[in-house]
C-alpha cells in the first residue's frame, strides 16, 4: 500500500473465529509481507484481545504501533487495524460498517458457520468497504446493499432476469425487515 498523504488509511480488516483462526482477512498494507507474518499478527492480536469483553461496544487497543478496534459477536471476532496516528473514530466507523453489513448479510445469524456458508458475501463485503487501504463506504446497510443489490441487467434474458430479480427482491426484503 502506498501512502495516500493525509488520507485515513486502513491496514487490514480481520474476521477470525473464537480460536483465532481465519474466517476472512484482507490486508491493505505491506507491513506484513508474508503469510507467516500475517498469521503471527493475527495470533498476536487475537491473544491480546481474547480476554477482553468487546461484545456490547467495540473496544480498542494499541499494539505494535497499530491502533486496533475490535468487536466480538458469538464466535466471530472482528478487527480493523490502522496506523498509530489514525483517528480512532474513523477506524471505529469502518468496523461498525463492516459489522453492520455482515449482520445484515447473515440475517442476524452472526456466527462462524453462517459466515463460512456465505463466505462469498463476506468477501464481497470486504471488497466494498475498503479498496487498497482507502475507505470506500462505512455505512453498513449501504455496503450490504451493494453486495446483494443485483439491479436489473437490461441485456439479460427474460427468464434469468426474473430469477435474479426475485432473488434480489427477496434479499432486499429480508434486509429491510432486519433493519427494523
Amino acid at each position: 500500500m502506498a501512502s495516500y498523504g493525509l488520507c485515513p488509511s486502513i491496514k487490514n480488516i480481520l474476521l477470525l473465529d473464537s480460536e483465532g483462526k481465519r474466517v476472512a482477512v484482507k490486508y491493505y498494507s505491506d507491513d506484513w509481507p508474508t503469510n507467516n507474518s500475517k498469521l503471527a499478527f493475527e495470533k498476536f492480536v487475537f491473544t491480546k484481545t481474547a480476554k477482553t469483553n468487546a461484545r456490547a461496544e467495540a473496544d480498542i487497543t494499541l499494539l505494535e504501533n497499530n491502533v486496533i478496534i475490535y468487536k466480538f459477536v458469538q464466535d466471530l471476532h472482528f478487527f480493523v487495524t490502522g496506523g498509530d496516528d489514525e483517528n480512532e473514530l474513523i477506524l471505529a466507523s469502518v468496523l461498525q460498517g463492516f459489522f453492520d453489513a455482515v449482520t445484515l448479510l447473515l440475517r442476524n445469524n452472526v456466527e462462524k458457520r453462517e459466515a463460512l456458508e456465505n463466505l462469498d458475501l463476506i468477501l464481497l463485503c470486504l471488497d466494498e468497504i475498503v479498496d487498497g487501504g482507502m475507505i470506500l463506504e462505512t455505512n453498513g446497510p449501504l455496503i450490504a446493499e451493494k453486495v446483494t443489490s443485483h439491479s436489473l441487467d437490461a441485456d439479460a434474458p427474460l427468464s434469468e432476469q426474473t430469477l435474479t430479480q426475485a432473488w434480489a427482491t427477496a434479499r432486499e426484503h429480508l434486509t429491510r425487515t432486519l433493519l427494523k
Partner: protein
Amino acid sequence: MAQPLVKKDDDRDDEAEYSPFLGIEKGAVLQEARVFNDPQLDARRCSQVITKLLYLLNQGESFTKVEATEVFFSVTKLFQSRDLGLRRMVYLIIKELSPSADEVIIVTSSLMKDMNSKTDMYRANAIRVLCRITDGTLLTQIERYLKQAIVDKNPVVASAALVSGIHLLQTNPEIVKRWSNEVQEAVQSRAALVQFHALALLHQIRQNDRLAVSKLVTSLTRGTVRSPLAQCLLIRYTSQVIRESGNNAQSGDRPFYDFLESCLRHKSEMVIFEAAKAITELSGVTSRELTPAITVLQLFLSSSKPVLRFAAVRTLNKVAMTHPMAVTNCNIDMESLISDQNRSIATLAITTLLKTGNESSVDRLMKQITNFMSDIADEFKIVVVEAIRSLCLKFPLKYRSLMNFLSNILREEGGFDYKKAIVDSIVILIRDIPDAKESGLLHLCEFIEDCEFTYLSTQILHFLGVEGPKTSDPSKYIRYIYNRVHLENATVRASAVSTLAKFGAAVDELKPRIFVLLRRCLFDNDDEVRDRATLYLNTLGGDGAVVETDKDVKDFLFGSFDIPLANLETSLKNYEPSEEPFDIISVPKEVKSQPLAEKKAPGKKPTGLGAPASGPSSTADAYERLLLSIPEFANLGKLFKSSAPVELTEAETEYAVNVVKHIFDRHVVFQYNCTNTIPEQLLEDVIVLVDASEAEEFSELFSKPLRSLPYDSPGQTFVAFEKPEGLPTVGKFSNILKFIVKEVDPTTGETEDDGVEDEYQLEDLEVVAADYILKVGVSNFRNAWESLGPDSEKVDEYGLGPRESLAEAVNTVINLLGMQPCEGTEVVPPNSRSHTCLLSGVFIGNVKVLVRLSFGLDGPKDVAMKLSVRSEDENVSDAIHEIVASG
C-alpha cells in the same frame, strides 16, 4: 452476554458440519475449476468454485504461476455468463490473482465493455478491477471513460473511479492530473463518500502546489462539506496549511483557527475529535486555543464507548507532555478511568495523571498503578515507566516509593524493551538523585542475578563498575558481580571481570580480595574472560604487592575510549603480523566520514603533514606512520627524531617547500613538503636534487619523487642519505626542485598532455648536531644528575659576547642544543644578573645527556657561560661541548 462457546474439536463429525470448507484441497478445487470451461455454464456451481478458490487464497494458500494462469484463463470464460452474482465473484478473483501484463489483455475488452454497461454495479466494479490490474499504456485508452465515471450520477461509480484515481496517481501521476476539472466537480457532489474521495484525490493532485492547497482549503472551509470523512480530511489539510504558513500568528489570530474551533461543534464525533486533535497539535498552541478542544475531549472521557474514551485520553496524554496545566481540569474524570475495563485506557489515564499530578497524589497513584501493571501490554508498561521516571525527577523527595515501584516491576515478567526502559530509568534516577544511589544500585544487582538479557547485564555491570566503588560500602556489590562470573555466558562473565577490576583499582582495601577472584577467572574456558583477567591482574599489580593504583591504570579502566571504533577496526585490519607490535597510538583519532581510500598513494596524502607541528608528540607519530607506510623506508629502523619543518622558500612564492629532517641510526631522510600555489599548473615527477658536496660524510641512497602535485594540495617527496652509524654527522645541502610543468585550465580542470621540464632553486639545508638530540625531560634533575656521577662530567667556560639580554642568550643556547629545559629553568627572571638553566635530552644511540648551564652577565652586555655536561658516554659529553664551541 450468553453465547455458546465453541467447543474445541469434540468430534470430527461435529467439525465437518461446522465448516463447508472442511477437507478442502487445492488440487481438487483446481480440478473443479474445469467447470468454467463447460459450454453450458452453471453459474451457481461456478460461483461456488470461485468461492472455494478465494477461500484457499484467503487462508494463505498460494498458487504456482502455472496454476494461477490456468485459473485466470478459465475464469475469463465466465464473462459469457450474464449472472450478476457470478460476475461479482469473477471481478473479485481477477483482483486476487493479480494477473501479469500479457494476461490482462485477455480481459481488457470484457472489462471495458462492462465499464460502459448500463448496470451501475458493473461499471463501478469493472473500473476498480481494470484500474487495479492495468498498466500505464492501457490507461490512456480508458482515460475518457474514467473521466466520465468521476462525474457519473451514480455515487458508487463515481467513488470507484475516484478511488482508482487515487491509486493510479502513485504510478501514473501525469495522466491522473489531467482529470482535475472532473475531480473538482465531484467535490461538489451531494453524495457524502464521493465528496470524500474527490477531496482526497484533488488534494493529492495539488499537494505540491502550496498555493493551490491553500486556496482549496480556504474555499472549502467557507462552504459546506457534507461527509464527516471529508470534513476530517479538510481538517487535516487545514492544519497542514497552518503548519506551512509558519509563525505569522503571534498576534493570537491564527488563520483557520475559527474553522477548527467550529468543527468542535460538528454533529459527528469523528469530526469533533479530529478537530480537537488538530488543535492540540498546532505548533505553539496557546492555552486559550487549547481550552475548547480540551473541553470536548473531557466530555469524551465519560463516554460509554471505549473507543471515544481511548481516543480522548490518548490525545490528552500527549497534551499533558507539553501543557500539563491545561489538562488538570480533566483530572477528576481521569481518575475514574484508572479502573476502566480497558487497560489501555487505564494506563493512559494513569500516565496522564502522573504528568499532571502533584506531589501529594503520588503515593495514591502508585498504589493504583501497581494493581494493574500485570495486565497491560509491554508498550503501555514502557509508557508508565517513562512517566514514573519523569515524575521522580520532578519530585525527588518521592524517590523511595517510585524506586520501590521500579524495582518491583523489574522483578516481574517482561520483554527486553520494557526491562531496558526500567533499567534506564533506575540508572537516570541514580545519576540525578544522590540519595537514591545505594538502593538503586542494589536493585540493579538483584536484577542481574536473574536477568535473561545479556545486553542489560553487561550495561548494568559497567555502570556498577563506575558507580559502585564510590559508595560507602563497595564490598557489598562484589558478591553480586562475582556471581556473574560463575553463572553467566561468556559476554557477561567478561564484563563482570572488568567490573571487578574497576573495584580493585578504585578501592585499595578490596584489592587483595579482588586479586583472589580475578585469579580464579584465569581458568575460565572463554578466551576473552581469561585475557581480561590476566590483563587486569597485571595492570593492577596482582603479583602480590598491594600498591596504590597508577593513574595510567585508572585512566585505562575508567577513562573514556576516545578513538573512534571504526578507525581502530581499519587500523587493526591493515595491521600485518610482524615484529612490530600494534600501537594504538597509531590509530587516527579524527572521525572520518568515509574510510580512507586505500588506493591513494601514501605519498599523496593530503593531510598537510608539512604544516607546523600542532603538538610535538602527535606530529612525531604522524611522521613515523607516514614513513612506515613507504616501503623503501621500512628497513631504516626506528625513527630517532624528526625535526620541525624548515622553510626552504620565501613566503608566497610559486612553490612553497619546507623540509623535515628525519634522523635514523644510520640514515637521514629529508621529507620535502611541497605545495603548488599556481592554479594553472599541474606539476609532475617532482623531485629535489640534493647536492651534498658540503656534506662529505653523507652519501645519497635514493630518492622518491612525487608523481603529481596538483594546485593547492600538498605532497611530499623524499630523499634518503646514508651516514656513519650513531654519530652526529653534520653537513650542508643545497637543493633544487625539479619537475615537469603541465598547463591546467582552471575553469574546466582539464590538463594539457605535454609538459615542460623546469627547475626551481631552494634554499640550503643543514643537518646540525641538535638534530641528533631528542628533547626528553627528567622529572627530578638533581637525582638524575647525581646518578650519572661526576666521572663523565665535562666542564668548560665560554664567553658568548655581547647579547641583548640574558634571556636571549639562554634561548639561543637551548635552541642550539635542542634539548629539553627542566624544572622551568628556561625562564629567566627579569633584571637578574645570573641564571642557571638545566637541560636534558637523549643523544643519538640512546645516550642520556644532562646539561647544567650557568650564565652570568659580565659587564653591561657580555654574557659568560659555564657549561657542565654529564652523560652516559664521555664522547657524547665532548660532542655537546663541540656543538657549543662551534655554535
